């Protein structure tokens, strides 16, 4: 282990503000933070970097971990997918971090996966994703499709009596996989294929006139219609504006979104969104003592009382606490020992209930559905009874319904129950 002055110039630049906290390396546990601080994803990921720093700060004030201080190592993969792999390798091989909190997009996670598996690292991934994956080296603290998409569709079907479906998404892996699962699910529930319309638009699509007009036509067939939106970040504002301008209100055709949260709403005029829905596992507006304390801590740390909290932040909160508990239980930061300690561990959610690590490296989460209010917050209109366990492999896709992930008894992330073989797409 080397002293701080031998750090590369690059990592000093990003970690510059933290230089003062850098002490003798053997007295500290290094925690890697792999979030884009520049480029297109900076809008979402910068917040996650800040929230991890906040939690490290709080843990150090409590006396650190195993008697050592935690030392963050922040790198900037700059929204560049190959750079994610390079920076991950730097964190694991050069900085020798004990754990990494990072990634947002699925493509960045796929890009770092081989690195984490080769170097036997540990990654906590905090964002809701499309599932169909379970790696020995990743703990998925965001929602799998059965913890967000499926409950949302159930809500629309049962509570709002929706009969006709528009699955509208941005053209990349998360919407395509999620929509494939949803289509299979809807058909299994007896929805006719003619009542499902699936469409994809490019990243950052800003001209929604034709699509919204088509949705309006599709929705005027006399059956209650809803839009399930997997539209990515930046394209959402023009989409909702166009809905508002073409006078499609949430009462007529509700839109339920999986990637629109408090943070995204803070950057846009909420008038056209009133009443539209979002499905998440956390909302800032849910009033619990733990959540209030978390929001207050965040406002103090970021020195801005107007900053919002959001679902991936809570996922990092859960992930960080789980890691701390696992390290305390294993009495070591060794990845193998921590990974062995993790399954079965529990930590409280901010909104109530416990988050428990399952053998498939996913966690249990409550599901909430909220309607957008004028102040950019959500009014919770439905919540799951208890928590929902995350399912790595969807039960509704023919290719993956027989596949099981279990790192405790089977020691396999891709075990086929029919052929009784572990094919290990990601891990051999």
């Amino acid at each position, binding site marked *: 282990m080397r002293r701080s002055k031998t750090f590369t110039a690059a990592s000093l630049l990003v970690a510059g503000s933290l230089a003062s906290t850098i002490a003798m390396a053997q007295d500290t546990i290094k925690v890697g933070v792999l979030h884009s601080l*520049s480029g*297109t994803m*900076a*809008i979402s990921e*910068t917040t996650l970097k800040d929230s991890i720093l906040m939690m490290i700060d709080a843990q150090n004030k409590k006396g650190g971990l195993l008697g050592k201080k935690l030392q963050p190592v922040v790198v900037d993969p700059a929204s560049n997918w190959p750079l994610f792999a390079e920076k991950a390798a730097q964190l694991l091989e050069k900085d020798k971090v004990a754990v990494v909190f990072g990634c947002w997009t699925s493509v960045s996670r796929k890009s770092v996966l081989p690195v984490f598996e080769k170097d036997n690292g540990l990654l906590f991934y905090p964002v809701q994703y499309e599932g169909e994956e379970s790696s020995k080296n990743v703990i998925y603290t965001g929602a799998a499709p059965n913890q967000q998409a499926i409950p949302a569709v159930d809500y629309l079907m049962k*509570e*709002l009596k929706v009969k006709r479906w528009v699955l509208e998404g941005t*053209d990349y892996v998360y919407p395509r996989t999620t929509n494939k699962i949803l289509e299979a699910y809807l058909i299994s529930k007896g929805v006719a294929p003619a009542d499902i319309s699936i*469409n*994809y*638009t*490019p990243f*950052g*699509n*800003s*001209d929604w*006139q*034709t*699509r919204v*007009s*088509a949705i309006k*036509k599709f929705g*005027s*067939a*006399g059956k209650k219609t809803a839009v399930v939106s997997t539209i990515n970040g*930046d394209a959402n*504002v*023009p989409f909702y*504006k*166009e809905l*508002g*301008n*073409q*006078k499609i209100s*949430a*009462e*007529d055709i*509700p839109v339920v979104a999986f990637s629109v949260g408090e*943070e*995204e709403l*803070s*950057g*846009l*005029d*909420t*008038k*056209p969104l009133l*009443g539209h829905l979002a499905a998440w596992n956390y909302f800032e507006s849910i009033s619990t003592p733990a959540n209030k304390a978390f929001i207050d801590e965040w406002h103090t740390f970021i020195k801005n009382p107007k900053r919002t909290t959001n679902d991936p932040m809570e996922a990092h909160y859960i992930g960080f606490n789980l890691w701390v508990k696992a390290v305390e239980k294993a009495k070591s930061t060794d990845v193998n020992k921590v990974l062995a300690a993790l399954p079965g561990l529990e930590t409280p959610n901010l909104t109530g209930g416990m988050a428990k690590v399952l053998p498939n490296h996913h966690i249990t989460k409550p599901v909430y559905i909220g*309607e957008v*209010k*004028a102040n950019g917050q959500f*009014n919770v*209109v439905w919540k799951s009874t208890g928590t929902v366990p995350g399912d790595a492999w969807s039960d509704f896709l023919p290719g993956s319904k027989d596949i099981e992930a279990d790192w405790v008894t089977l020691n396999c992330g891709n075990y086929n129950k029919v052929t009784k073989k572990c094919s290990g797409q990601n891990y051999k």
Partner: protein
Amino acid sequence: MKKVQWGGRWLLLLLTIWGALALSAQSASDTTFLSTLGELREADYSAKSAIVDRLSQGGHPSLRAVLTALMSGRLYFRNSDQQIFLVKSADSDPLQLIDPLTLKDAGSAPADSLTNIGTNNSLRRVLRTTVARFALSSAVAADRLQAVRDIMASPDDETTAILRERSGVETNASVKKEIATGLALAALTSPDSKTRLDAIATLSHSVSQDVRNQLASLIEAEKDEKVKRAAITAVEAIDRSRGFFSGIETLFFGLSLGSVLVLIAIGLAITFGVVGVINMAHGELMMLGAYTTYVVQMAMPGHIGISILVAIPAAFVVAGLTGVLMERTIIRFLYGRPLETLLATFGVSLILQQSVRSIFSALNRSVVTPEWMSGSLRVNDALAITYNRLYIVIFTLVVFAVSMLVLKRTRLGLEIRAVSQNRAMAKAMGIRTEWVDAMTFGLGSGIAGVAGVALSQLTNVGPNLGQSYIIDSFMVVVFGGVGNLWGALIGGASMGIVNKLLEPYAGAVLAKIFVLVALILFIQTRPRGLFPPAGRAAEDK
């Protein structure tokens, strides 16, 4: 329900109720009304819906005001004594309270001492129909029209009776027509085949999708051959006119997409055509314009409608000055070296992006759309044109005309044209070419800033705003002919329309690819674009 002649305006309403109240003091109905209203505090959404039903059956002079307030999120209760209040506007703090019984001002209170009574989508749907019944007797014809439409959204025997009653006293022609359509729709289920035939005759002039669907389902169930045939003919007629209007709609979509491209390309065409600089930072100059809109809006809260108009000159100045600064400090040293300017301006674009990130944070900023720019102009049931797009089409034409005027009718324009045709000769005639270069660059950049104001109404205002449009606008400039304003106009409009014509068939992704491939093929045969530079000037370009 009690039939009371409502004045459309608040004042009138207030007076009527005040008068009514003066006659009878706090009556029994007031007490029931208040206690039923009080139940809203604790109830869940389906219970709230039942309470709304009970309230509207009870009937009370201030029922309409209370339900409207509930629908628009303006019904609150005070935390200290659980008393219910309406508020004037939910956005203000402190909240201006209104008493639910007398509808008179009841002072004000800080926003956190009151709790909002929430609604969800299904409850608002119920409320909309209920409130629409009140609006049916509004003095404003447009309100009555909307009310008829809202009522028709969930038809039953009761609504049919209400509509029939209204049709007897209605004077406005378009409201009358809408009511006739509503009654005819109800008559489709009549057991008498003559009534059904009459209804179909009325409905065949409609272009509404609802009417078409109802007729189509009638065809499936209909036993009477004559009625069935009439319905089939009616559906065909509706489909024909709907097809016609949807063609117009697509054309408008194309024009509005094209107008955005033209707006961006005008500035680019000026700098590209005259100074010969490929300005990679053009998109970031638009971003500056959009952020100027945001800053102006922050600076004049309460005047959202005017702020957009103020933002136009402000954005022109901000982006224009930035452009002049760029030209004076970087670009003028690089004239005649296109590759270096390309890289230098690309560098500038990154600097501008990151500085915006540092100043305003990486998060998007919210620019509010003024009231007069939201919503749509409803031509008929099949065609509605959104206001923001309509204004942007008009705005583009104005900017185009003004740019044309500057280039053709002013001294600066004359000098710009002289320099672009023959720099050396212009210099010999005493034109300060360096000054002209700077001014041209400033003009082009200023127009980019103005385009940014328009974009702030369509999309996100964030550090990446410029990047998403810059490629398309380069394509327009290349397609139209380098440095030609008419080329930019025709090129942009036709690319927009082709894109939108293809989109319904091919999808947004494929449509873009098709347009790109077509453009490549076009450039292969006509490398100088639609309007190639003519004459001697063309030789050395």
